[in-house]
């Protein structure tokens, strides 16, 4: 059996990540979830947060938005609306986006708008959290 996973992370704009990895940790809807090779086939949803990828003993961090994950024994496919590696996160920009979103929350919004604002707020929060947590190391 294979002892690596083919990890694919795609967003509507591009294929963000595609590598053979040893392990991946996902921000599942029901809590954090670690996936090793030969995992049982699983479909799940993810919430905005952090994906930790272990490859060749090194850890890589990505901030991701809402999405879906398909896991088979040898493949993990992540469909999400945002995926940014930690070294490409611009903290000031994310912070600005968070403040903009928060300011808009206080306005009168219809369902559609409020869903969009909440999504962008969650995305920018995820970026900020990931960036700050990983800077300390």
């Amino acid at each position, binding site marked *: 059996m294979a002892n690596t996973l083919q990890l694919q992370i795609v967003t509507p704009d591009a294929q963000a990540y595609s590598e053979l990895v040893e392990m991946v940790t996902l921000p599942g809807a029901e809590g954090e979830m670690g996936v090793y090779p030969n995992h049982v*086939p*699983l*479909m799940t*949803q993810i919430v905005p947060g952090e994906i930790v990828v272990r490859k060749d003993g090194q850890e890589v961090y990505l901030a991701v938005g809402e999405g*879906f994950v398909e896991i088979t*024994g040898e493949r993990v496919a992540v469909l999400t*609306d945002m995926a940014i590696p930690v070294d490409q996160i611009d903290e000031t920009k994310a912070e600005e986006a968070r403040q903009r979103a928060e300011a808009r929350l206080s306005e009168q919004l219809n369902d*559609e708008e409020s869903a969009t604002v909440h999504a962008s707020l969650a995305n920018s929060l995820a970026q900020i959290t990931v960036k700050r947590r990983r800077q300390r190391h």
Partner: protein
Amino acid sequence: MPSTRDIRRRIKSVKNTAQITKAMQMVAASKMRKAQQAALAGRPYADLMNKVLAALVTESKDFSHPLVERRQGQTRCVIVVSTDKGLCGGLNSALMRDAAKFEPGTKFISAGRKASQFLARTKRALVAEFTYKDAPSFSEARAISKFAQDVYLKGEADRVDILFTRFVSTLVQKPETRQLLPVGEIKPVTAGVGAKAEEGREAGAGWGEFLFEPNQEQVLGALLPHSLNFQVYQILLEAKASEHSARMVAMKNATDNAQQFIKDLTLEYNKLRQANITKELLEISTAAMAMG
């Protein structure tokens, strides 16, 4: 017989037209590149989404969801995706020819101003109008798709199709009708030059049943509408790529025609000028002879 001054005036006006069409051609060319790139960039996502869905539909036998359910009724609803502006050759007229073929009872949803105008003029049942920007955003696509799903779920239509211009190549765009609801066979949305149809059924093969977390209803309930939204988004991108390609080609033809016209007019102008000079010379020499 026009005078030389008349011809000069016409040449000037044709030159102005050529300048404008040339500028529009350039703008369309750059927009076309952007639109094509956007359509191509979304393909890995679309492919993967289709794979996942196809795997799910084949894997889970007891699969049922209101959006998948087939109904007996005959009421149809069609989303027509057109452009906002004209000057793009036969793109919209080809599209409208197809739109006019649907049975009289069909309900229509329009995206783009040309479709709204056409449907209003032909007095079709237009239930909603949507607009989308030059760079279509996902939220615009979601609004359209959400409305279509509501229409379907409320039972106002038993089948929803989408009519748009498929981007085949820069020179060829074809109107195409695709079934959106109920979700049937899952087909990848192809876009761009040399797009390959992806085999969607191999995923998950040999892996038995999928587990779902939190549960099947919730995952499918979220995934199905999302995949429809994304499908509409891909279609909007493709329609934009078609529009800009068609406009670029139309404007290139217009520029070429104007240039040819300028050439013809210049030739005529020179002939006339030459004739005038010859006439004057003749007059002078005749006068000189008469004097002598």
